């Protein structure tokens, strides 16, 4: 019998366009301290394993896992890095606990995007070096191409996408992490038609740490159960993927719902990736949640900012808070790795 897994502690820091007073280590330390206090765990003696989520070139450091243990209380402990979004890290924590090798696991993801001066150069290096890079297109163009194809095939409209942005900013009022909630430009500058500035999340710094535990280690407190996780991806090459559908979200949601023994109709609240406004709609369509009313009540990344590899944990954090507050009993958090990837993860969480 595999143990049930719960989120027992959450902490965050940053969630601001820039965090000049803190190094990335200090940003991580702050979030970790809050998470450990929230979960009432001592990282030096009570956390069995640590999972960090980062990509070298977004940090400007090769083999970045060298630089994570100290500020997480993870020195001389089992630590691993996932080169992916934080929700994949959460899925990894679930696997570690279910395998029996760990009872309590900390998951960390952060963005210190303000340290990166040349985002475009970095992102460009994620394109195929032989087929795509010589074309000298920005990765943002991929979002424009996908959005057009998605609107064409789904029948959704540009107005619906613009409405997603407006609604997110309204919902974000009162969310202390939503540093972009009121940042609306007078002119909605085009990015890659039909994508415009208002439909795109803006880069931010921040860190999220979560502590997960097996049922027997989660006694006391108010656990939020992670009853299903799924992760998947479509073709990595631009030439082979489905440009209208979020295949990764379809597949990962199917796995997560199946593991949780739930159907999309059981879901009461969702925090989904909205790096771009159309992505929110595309992801809801993919997960069978297109009729769901309570979506991204936090304001999503459009309001909190684009936290790069921490996007998925930011969505999971918002979901945990809503479940803890009794706003719902069953919810889902979903992530996408961002351009130019076609990979993502889903976590189904319940309360009580």
């Amino acid at each position, binding site marked *: 019998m595999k143990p049930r897994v719960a989120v027992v502690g959450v902490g965050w820091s940053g969630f601001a366009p820039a*965090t000049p007073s803190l190094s990335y280590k200090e940003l991580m330390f702050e979030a970790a301290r809050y998470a450990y206090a929230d979960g009432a765990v001592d990282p*030096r003696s009570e956390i069995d394993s640590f999972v960090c989520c980062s990509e070298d070139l*977004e940090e400007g450091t090769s083999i970045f896992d060298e630089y994570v243990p100290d500020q997480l209380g993870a020195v*001389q402990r089992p630590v691993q*890095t996932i080169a*992916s979004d934080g929700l994949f890290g959460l899925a990894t924590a679930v696997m570690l606990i279910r395998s029996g090798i760990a009872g309590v696991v900390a998951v960390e993801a952060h963005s210190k995007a303000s340290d990166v001066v040349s985002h475009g150069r970095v992102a460009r290096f994620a394109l195929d070096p032989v087929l795509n890079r*010589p074309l000298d297109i920005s990765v943002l163009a991929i979002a424009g191409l996908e959005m057009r194809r998605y609107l064409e095939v789904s029948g959704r409209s540009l107005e619906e996408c613009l409405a997603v942005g407006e609604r997110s900013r309204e919902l974000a009022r009162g969310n202390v992490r939503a540093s972009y909630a009121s940042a609306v430009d007078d002119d909605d500058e085009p990015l890659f038609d039909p994508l415009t500035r208002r439909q795109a999340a803006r880069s931010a710094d921040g860190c999220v740490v979560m502590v997960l535990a097996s049922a027997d280690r989660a006694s006391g407190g108010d656990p939020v159960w992670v009853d299903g996780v799924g992760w998947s991806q479509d073709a990595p090459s631009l030439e082979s993927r489905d440009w209208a559908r979020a295949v990764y979200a379809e597949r990962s949601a199917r796995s997560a719902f199946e593991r949780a023994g739930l159907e999309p109709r059981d879901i009461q609240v969702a925090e989904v990736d909205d790096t771009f406004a159309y992505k929110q709609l595309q992801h809801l369509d993919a997960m069978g949640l297109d009729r769901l009313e309570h979506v991204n009540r936090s304001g999503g990344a459009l309001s909190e900012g684009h936290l790069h590899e921490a996007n998925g944990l930011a969505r999971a954090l918002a979901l945990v808070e809503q479940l803890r507050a009794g706003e719902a009993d069953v919810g889902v958090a979903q992530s996408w790795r961002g351009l130019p990837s076609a990979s993502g993860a889903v976590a189904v969480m319940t309360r009580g």
Partner: protein
Amino acid sequence: MGSRVAVIGAGMTRFVRRAQETGKELAWIASRAALDSCELTLDGIDAVCLTSAPDAFDGVHRKGDYLADGAGAWAKPYIRTYVGGGSGVFTAIQGWYTVASGMADVVLCVAEEKMSSCQPHPQGAFLTIFDNILERPLGPNLLWIFALEMQRYMHAYGLDKRDIAAVAVKNKRNAADHPAALLGQTDITVDDVLASDVLAWPVQRLDVSPISDGAVAIVMASEDAARRLTDRPVWVDGVGWNLDSTYWTNRDLAYPEYVENAARMAYGMAGITEPRKQIHVAEPYDPFDYKELHHLEGLMLFDKGKAPEAAADGVTARDGDLPCCPSGGLLGVGNPIAAAGLMKVAEIYWQLRGEAGARQVPGTPERGVAQAWGDLMQVGTVVVMGADEGGRGGSATPPQAPRATPPQAPRATALSESEFRLAPGARDEPFDAAYEWDAGEAMGRFLAGLEEATLLATRCSRCERVLLPPRMFCERCFLPIDDWIALEPIGIVETFSICHVTWDMQPLVEPQIPAVVRIDGASEGGFLHLLGEARPGDVTIGMEVEAVWKRPEEREGSILDLAFFRPRDLALRTA
């Protein structure tokens, strides 16, 4: 603990200096070979685990996503993990927990590295492994840290370099029997190693593994699936991994405590209480010859400082009491970083199945261990594997007739430097990304101190350690710190190297002397810097040194405000 997990198939490419194949193609060749070895197709694979070391090698950001289709992961659950050089063995650990958690029944684990894409020299990818504020301004290269560690290891135990060189000889000779090997050599001698170019004393050219391209894959399965798919599963009996502090200049480099921690975790899970009796074959990580010895000690297979003597006496030879790196290891087969680690897991798999061909160790080994290492001399990854029921009190499977191994002749096309440059589609592309790191609270104050010619440290109120480099938190007590003290800028040389080459292997006219300087008053040492005003031949471990500062108007709040350390003994100064 979860259900049992087995390795049921393995495959690899040839390891070559410059492969014609792309990273995706290398991953595909290895994956296909692993699937073929257990007669599976991708339909039988539930999830894919991938590893690859720095993105900078392949020149591809988010290399995991890029490699997905080559690794057979299209439309499958797929995660890339990495722990630096420890990644290759770690991906087998990832495969283990993916299956043991019940998330998948059969997984494909793939490790790929294409180092040759990184120009002008793959060592360039390592320039950015160093601390962005404290170390990179010094212009360190990868050889420094190995040389500093090797020097410390030799000093701590009074080791003879001849004994260490015996490892390079053994592994390159073993590799001559490996069909995938890049540097197999039957006639190499200890004298050859000792006569090879000095790169960064005590590291010489033949102490070092070669830059390589390659990929390795294994198939792992749950107990039920393994019983269904093979008659000879090799069980993963134990897994362990451990990461030490980032502050490598704060620990004694003579012994890899993190490897011991990882080994204890894996041995505990495997029920191993006497590793020297219960382990029959080992693949310790050997990017440099001394590292194999260092790791054998960390794995508790030899007493501290005693592995070199055992190696020189033939104990670790293929027909010795404890065969180590019968594959030929990284020194002989090659070192495409992540792939090299998984190659070790594959080798133990083949050895325990009796399929290692000319490399097969004598007897019927029932238990083996594969280990890798990485980061800033910081991470240990360990997998203990057993033949059916081996070590669990049951009877060992009767030995079967050995097959030629690896089951398929490993592929990959080696190109010469000129062929590589002239290959169709070959193109140069600079990675000219720019970063501006926030130094933060602790490092910001430390740098401001340097500008005033002051060395600032922090002191933890709980454990009372004086920390240099300073941090705003104590990593041991996990509490914030706000107690600052100034230290006198004097100390002793903890370890040093005489480096004769630049990062891209060009000779230096004047050798550099990098050193870890232990500052007086700091609890656990100090930091990396350069020695000056000293003759290379006069430098010793334990030598007293003092800081030489730049002139006030030249200082700018950088580690370079401290120009270098020089001997305190006037007689040892050159200037």
